[in-house]
């Protein structure tokens, strides 16, 4: 970085005004007896983006915080950080190299879709059982590991789709069994602090599963070959394929953006399964019953839905979603028994960012986290450092979310019950 002083100076300036704004604006709105649910966020963002220039009018006028007032300062703050970075480090790859930036953004979105899909499972479990599952990463790991074993070790040459289906089925059953054996006492009011119990028991499962798999398969990284080869496409013409050019394992758009095959197929599969899931949740009786339970457990029970069975279904389904994400990514990353730790954390970040319990929030949150990680890995000058910081990017997002807008992007406020309280 050429001018680190400038960059950190701008960041410090933004932090100072952000903190000042978040505190002052909230106080002001509280005094004026106005809705304060967005004040911390808007105050912080406006302070960070404009400093006193924007804060003073907001403080004086206290207008209603419309969506525009919420979104614009946030964008402004992001743009300001980007500008400061560009100014401080004009030669960096992620400033000077347009095609690198485009590639980074596209890949960020693609990986973000997969992240979001995995987080969807977590948020589904949360919205119905009220449990934050700490074993989500291990279901992801088991899904990938089983797919590897089915398609490579046990039945080589089998259609990978069968392997994936097999992994999903096994994890579905595993999730259902675990729910029956360990989570049922939670709903019967036999546990004093159900939220903590849920965290600890899934934590125990994560621990057990991780070492169980390590004991059985050892700790050598494994990987399947890619499930599907791209057909050879040259557009608009074979001589000058500036629009689309594919090789078996890669896709190149506009001569600049390069997307690897496993990631793209995984993302496409995720979108397809997401569609199926939405259909299931909104069009089938069972799906509607699930959503009903997530909204009001007692009322659903009165309407003839057995909440206990819905709990089992939701947990199994959530676990299966994680397993599917793992099964789709085992062709892209090398697989270890510990591979689930970082995705699990990332899923937590995404569901908190999107709003615990919100399905669209999980998806949008996933894409945002994908972009943040792409920016982080692409822009930090020292690549070794950038790699070491990968787990931290998401956690910074988490910290900011919890401080500025604990309900997340699409979170609903939980009026009662220990589950959603924070």
């Amino acid at each position: 970085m050429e001018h680190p002083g400038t960059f950190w100076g701008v960041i410090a300036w933004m932090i100072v005004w952000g903190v000042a704004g978040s505190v002052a604006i909230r106080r002001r709105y509280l005094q004026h007896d106005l809705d304060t649910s967005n004040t911390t966020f808007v105050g912080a963002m406006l302070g960070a983006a404009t400093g006193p220039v924007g804060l003073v009018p907001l403080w004086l006028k206290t207008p209603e915080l419309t969506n525009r007032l919420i979104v614009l300062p946030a964008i402004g703050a992001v743009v300001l950080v980007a500008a400061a970075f560009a100014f401080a480090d004009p030669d960096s790859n992620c400033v000077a190299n347009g095609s690198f930036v485009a590639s980074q953004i596209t890949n960020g979105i693609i990986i973000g879709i997969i992240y979001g899909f995995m987080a969807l499972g977590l948020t589904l479990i949360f919205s119905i059982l009220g449990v934050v599952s700490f074993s989500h990463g291990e279901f992801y790991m088991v899904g990938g590991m089983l797919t590897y074993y089915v398609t490579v070790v046990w039945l080589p040459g089998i259609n990978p789709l069968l392997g994936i289906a097999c992994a999903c089925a096994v994890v579905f059953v595993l999730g259902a069994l675990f729910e029956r054996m360990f989570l049922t006492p939670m709903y019967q009011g036999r546990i004093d602090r159900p939220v903590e119990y849920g965290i600890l028991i899934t934590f125990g499962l994560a621990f057990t599963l991780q070492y169980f798999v390590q004991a059985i398969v050892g700790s050598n990284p494994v990987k399947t070959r890619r499930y599907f080869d791209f057909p050879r496409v040259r557009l608009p013409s074979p001589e000058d394929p500036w629009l689309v050019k594919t090789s078996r394992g890669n896709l190149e758009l506009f001569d600049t953006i390069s997307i690897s095959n496993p990631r793209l197929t995984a993302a496409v599969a995720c979108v397809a399964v997401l569609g199926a899931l939405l259909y299931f949740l909104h069009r089938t009786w069972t799906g509607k019953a699930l959503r009903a339970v997530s909204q009001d457990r007692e009322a659903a029970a009165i309407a003839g839905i057995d909440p206990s069975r819905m709990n089992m279904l939701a947990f199994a389904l959530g676990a299966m979603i994680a397993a599917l994400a793992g099964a789709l990514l085992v062709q892209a990353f090398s697989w270890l028994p510990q591979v689930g730790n970082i995705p699990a954390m990332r899923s937590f970040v995404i569901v908190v960012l999107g709003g615990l319990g919100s399905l669209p929030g999980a998806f949008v949150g996933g894409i945002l986290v994908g972009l943040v990680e792409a920016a982080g890995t692409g822009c930090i000058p020292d690549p070794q450092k950038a790699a070491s910081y990968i787990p931290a990017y998401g956690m910074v997002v988490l910290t900011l979310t919890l401080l500025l807008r604990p309900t997340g992007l699409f979170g609903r406020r939980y009026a009662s019950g220990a589950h959603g309280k924070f």
Partner: protein
Amino acid sequence: MIHLAVSNVHKRFGGLHALKGVTFEVNGPELIGLIGPNGAGKTTLTNVLDGAIKPNTGTVYLNGQRIDQLHPYEVAIAGLGRTFQVTRSFRRMSVLENLYVPALATRRAADRKAIHAKAMEVLEFLTLGHLRNEYAQALSGGQQKLLELGRLLMLDPGIVILDEPFAGVHPRLMEIIYAYIRRVNEEGKAIILISHQMDSIFSLSQRLLVLNFGGLIADGPPDEVKRDPAVIEAYLGTEEEPEGDAGARDDATDEDNPTHR
């Protein structure tokens, strides 16, 4: 001499105007009943007095000290105690420990021995003596209510707000609560009693406050209030409604959901 002065307290929640300029005073060891239909603002008023909610405008003075901007614990130490509509005992602490908490928190506390002696006396009074070492969660709903009252005796505030003390309580325990109210009153403390059980309220209180739609519509001796046309229209006009049941039903639904406020 206890003196509580509530003047012109307003509280809005977004569009809902929960309290509209409530003004009243408590002078000395009065026994005041606070009634009003559901949603009249009784609980909001309690929360404002207790410090859990800050009023938008208006002031609350307790013995000359302004308490409306204080944290609930400061209000409690200043001398205003309250119970909750839904019992909130410390479930995984023993009955005695439940009583020690407020006694140690006030900092007026003498030595441990004195606190223990007082706690035992309070427990005997509430007929919970034999349960002193049991966890509070082992107690029945009515006994937990008594325990909550006992905690207030240990806090020893100058003014006590009892939110629905009779809801869902067995008649035999009701006698104890009556005795409790008389005792607290005789100790020279003011009591604000919130209840839906009209007969209890009318027989116990010396003065009635009636809330409706966030405003105080009547303030006076029970007999006068009973005849007040505004009160009859707003509240007692629906006398046919089964008394007390409303409270009991609330209690039942809330029990499944211990954190519900």
